[in-house]
């Protein structure tokens, strides 16, 4: 248990020591997206009575969460493998399950930190500049999915393709939390996301168990 906690602590400390790059930069990037897209589109575009700037925020939050969670575990593992310092975690008596959990929880932690940062900063921006924050925060409105668009604005074929993308369900379900309306039932989104997580987690665990590309 101490081994697992130490690995988790190390993984969190790793990104926290360079928080400017790992948390600050993605928040700033998301804010720039919001500024540019809302500047260009806010006056022209409304999605089901939601202002485009407000519509954009949940998508940006979820996108940042996913990208940073992914970037955390992948960059940590690949960097330490390329640098060779991965031996420091391969030599101790850590099980593959501990390995998996520590990396996953650290990734979730960074994703959540970035997500909260994006939500606060872009929300503040929306409140300040657009006076739509009240609406955005309190009144869940009709929403669709995709980060920057509703999939209903896509040709039928691409709408179908979107439905095979687990990220679509994550964003759709997440937006439902804000606006109360979604493309697919939130329970379906939750189920798809849970099943996807299970599939990815089991694949990862079996790869770690066999030492795939880590122990030769």
């Amino acid at each position, binding site marked *: *248990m*101490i*081994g697992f*906690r*130490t*690995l988790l*602590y*190390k993984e969190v*400390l*790793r990104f926290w*020591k*360079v928080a400017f790059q790992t948390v600050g930069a993605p928040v700033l990037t998301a804010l720039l997206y919001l500024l540019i897209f809302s500047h260009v589109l806010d006056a022209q575009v409304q999605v089901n009575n939601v202002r485009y700037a407000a519509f954009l925020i949940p998508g940006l939050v979820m996108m940042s969460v996913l990208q940073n969670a992914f970037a955390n575990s992948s960059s940590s593992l690949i960097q*330490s493998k390329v*640098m*060779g*310092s991965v*031996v*420091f*975690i*391969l*030599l*101790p*008596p*850590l*099980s593959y399950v501990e390995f998996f959990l520590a990396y996953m929880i650290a990734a979730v932690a960074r994703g959540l930190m970035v997500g909260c940062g994006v939500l606060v900063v872009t929300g503040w921006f929306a409140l300040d500049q657009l006076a739509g924050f009240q609406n955005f925060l309190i009144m869940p409105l009709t929403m669709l999915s995709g980060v920057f668009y509703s999939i209903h604005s896509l040709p039928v074929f691409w709408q179908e393709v979107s439905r095979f993308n687990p990220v679509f369900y994550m964003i759709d379900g997440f937006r439902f939390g804000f606006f109360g309306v979604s493309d697919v039932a939130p329970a379906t989104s939750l189920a798809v996301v849970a099943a996807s997580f299970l599939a990815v987690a089991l694949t990862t665990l079996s790869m770690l168990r066999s*030492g795939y590309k880590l*122990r*030769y």
Partner: protein
Amino acid sequence: MGVAVSIQDVVKRFGSVRALAGVSLEIAEGEFFGLLGPNGAGKTTLISCLAGLVRPDAGRLSVLGCDVHADYREARRRLGVVPQELVFDPFFSVRETLRIQSGYFGIRRNDDWIDEILANLDLTGKADVNMRRLSGGMKRRVLVAQALVHKPPVIVLNEPTAGVDVELRQGLWQFVRRLNEEGHTVILTTHYLEEAEALCGRIAMLKQGRVVALDTTPNLLARFAGHTLNVRLAGTAVLPEALRAAASEHDGYWVFRLGGFDEIESVLGAIRRSGGTIEDLRLTQADLEDVFVGVMHEEIVGALP
């Protein structure tokens, strides 16, 4: 004394390359054991199998009775490995690195022992310096410290002194020797043969994934090397035909490998009878380097005890 490390018929292939072709070794508790061989002989692969970094295709390995696969947690707890490559985690200071490494092995509040290691490796002043700012020799010392945080009964040092200055090398050996005297088993691979000769009680030599020599250091020196007689003849004198087969020429000297001191007499006698005059004569005791070169150039698997 129990068995510290047991290696039985270990085979490992990387594609078409056979890195280990059936290696068996047994190292007793408290030994200072040397693992020698040219580059690519399989030393690092063997150590990696022991540490669980590489999975053998066949064979079994255990550390103090714990199988490195079936009982990997216990085996790894008993083993401290200093890797060959100069690797480090650039995010942390020396002390953080060592605390984290202790935690991986399930040890908290290890600072007393960490301080002792730091002092012994002359790192105390660098404890709070980021790993990135350390020189190569300092990073090497931290690697040694990382391998020791959990006080492993079996210590494996893979080329620990490559690129390290003389002073540190002395200090490091003093420390490792002390650990060995306190009961730790030490396994050392090195390219500095004089180090192995001075430190190791027993030596295995690896060549192309096989053990080609395995004996105590004095026995190896005696069995494969013994003494050599170096003779330089004066002027235009020629070595008698009868001696040619037993001699090799090196730097203007005729070199004879001696089976015993009585052979000196017959060599000198033959030269005298042929009318030659000796200008210079040296009797040298071969060192481990001679043994190594000798072993690597002849196939002596059959000569193993």
